[in-house]
């Protein structure tokens, strides 16, 4: 099992989400985050004084998937999040030691399976 953590532009989210749904990966967590990297800051002027804001808004996506699905997810994110400019973001893949589904107490890869109807419902 792997945890995929991606930091992307807000614009890229919708196409990524749609494609992952179609591929049968409806499960994810997202968060609005602010972070800094190579992208330049934004300077705000206020009554002649200025402050540079180095932390730019990004969207963080977390996806827990089976080892075999990692490349599919990563490719989808790369495909839609890349504009070619500084600030497109990053993807990190890290191992997951164990996973539990709280409702049933199941553990392991079983917890990563989407509900059979989820993808269909999302499409409809």
């Amino acid at each position, binding site marked *: 099992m792997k945890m995929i953590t991606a930091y992307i532009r807000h614009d890229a989210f919708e196409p990524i989400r749609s494609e992952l749904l179609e591929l049968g990966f409806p499960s994810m967590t997202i968060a609005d985050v602010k972070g800094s990297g190579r992208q330049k800051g934004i300077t*705000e002027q206020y009554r002649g004084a200025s402050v*540079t804001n180095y932390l730019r808004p990004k969207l963080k996506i977390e996806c827990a998937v089976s080892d075999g699905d990692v490349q599919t997810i990563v490719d989808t994110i790369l495909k839609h999040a890349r504009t070619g400019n500084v600030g497109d973001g990053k993807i990190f893949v890290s191992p997951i030691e164990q996973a539990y589904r709280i409702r049933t107490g199941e553990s392991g890869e079983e917890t990563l399976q989407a509900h059979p109807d989820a993808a269909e419902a999302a499409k409809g």
Partner: protein
Amino acid sequence: MKRPNMRGAMLSAAIASLLMPTAALAQDEAPPTLQSLTDGLAATGSDVSATWIMLSAILVILMQVGFMFLEIGFARGKNVGTIVAKILVNFSIAAVVWWAVGYGIAFGGGGQFIGDSGFLLNVGQTMSETSIPTVLGYGAEVNGMHFTYFLFQFAFVAVSLAIVWGSTLERIKFIAYPIYAVVFVAVIYPLVAHQVWAGNLHPFGLLIQDFAGSSVVHLTGATGALAAVLLLGPRRGKFGADGKPRPIPGHNMPLFGLAVLILWVGWFGFNAGSTVSATGAIFGQVAVVTNLGAAGGVIGAAIMALALGKTLDVGMVGNGAIGGLVAITAPSGYVDPWAAAVIGLIAGLIIVPAIIGIEKKIDDPVGVLAVHGLAGIWGTLSCGLFTTEALTLEGQKSGLFYGGGAEQLAAQFVAVVATFLIVFIISFATFYLIKKTVGLRVTADEEIAGLDISEHGMYGYPEQFIPEAELVGYGSSPTLTSASAVASTAKPQEV
């Protein structure tokens, strides 16, 4: 301005009613002559009228607040400061240009197309014989009375200009505002006002019925908006890959609601003030008619929103109020109260499907095209249906439902078409030139970052966009700075 003949009629009625009690009291005093009474009444009437026009002008200027917060409420939080700057700059440009050029072209008498007096208005200047103030009986020499009228008319052009920009939110370059504002206030609006309000357009020999400007102010603004939005294109993300529209919700519905009610209140100056006279308190009737129109608009839009969307959409209900007010603007001085409620109701029913329909192809963030455009057209045409015999002026006919036939309706239609053509052609040409020279639209990056930071270098809501940590100090490590600040104040004795 719009009913020069009414004033005389009102005056004689008032004199007649005054004469009755005076006749009874006259035994003890020298009997007043008709001439002395008329002189006294005219003087008082004129001062009271000037006060009413002045108050109305201020009410209409208050509507700028309404337009500011209506647009702010319907915009996203990253594009709000720019709206404040825009309203202030446009209003100021309009003030100067209207004084220098626009007023003279619109109301300064003259020939078929432009006026020939009243430019750079100043006390003691002479207005042409056919100028509206002179026709209203203010005299040819410019005095305080002229200035109240001037200010009132300025408030109208400023409203019309403010209407243009609602459809251009969140993507237009700021430089487009001042350029178009000059053309609009100096040329576009005055040409329309000169045709319709100064009576130079009289199809079939009839005078157009547009009491306070459903066409002159609202359709004019909306037509300018259409020209702008056609050249500007939709906001990023408005239409999906499948071509279907997606919502870009405004960030503050309470501010939108505040704006709607401010506009509603301002409209009493807009319509009731357009009597440009306090004589006979005819403005009371116009005010009630206006209120009924707005109420009809809310009810119509609420019904239609429930019918089409199954929910009571807050924005639609608010737009219903504005749509009702826009529609009742032209007929407000010509129709009975019952008709006002009907006209407003129909406007409310029209604008909900219109907004939804326009939204499918054109990105109009606040619904200008439906609320000011279609409701403005409906309001102008509705005069041709509902105008009563008693309220028509010389050279006008009553409406279709009051036995006046379809002639006035046809004349109203000509006014709508003429207004649209004048405004659309000049506006489209102006925006086209702006697009080809300085550019009409910001870059994609600027649009994503928001116009506040990209055009003005500052946010409307800084806390939402600048992490608190970064505000502590410029260029330093925020946590360390604040930690050492705490340490040094907490333990001063150790230093």
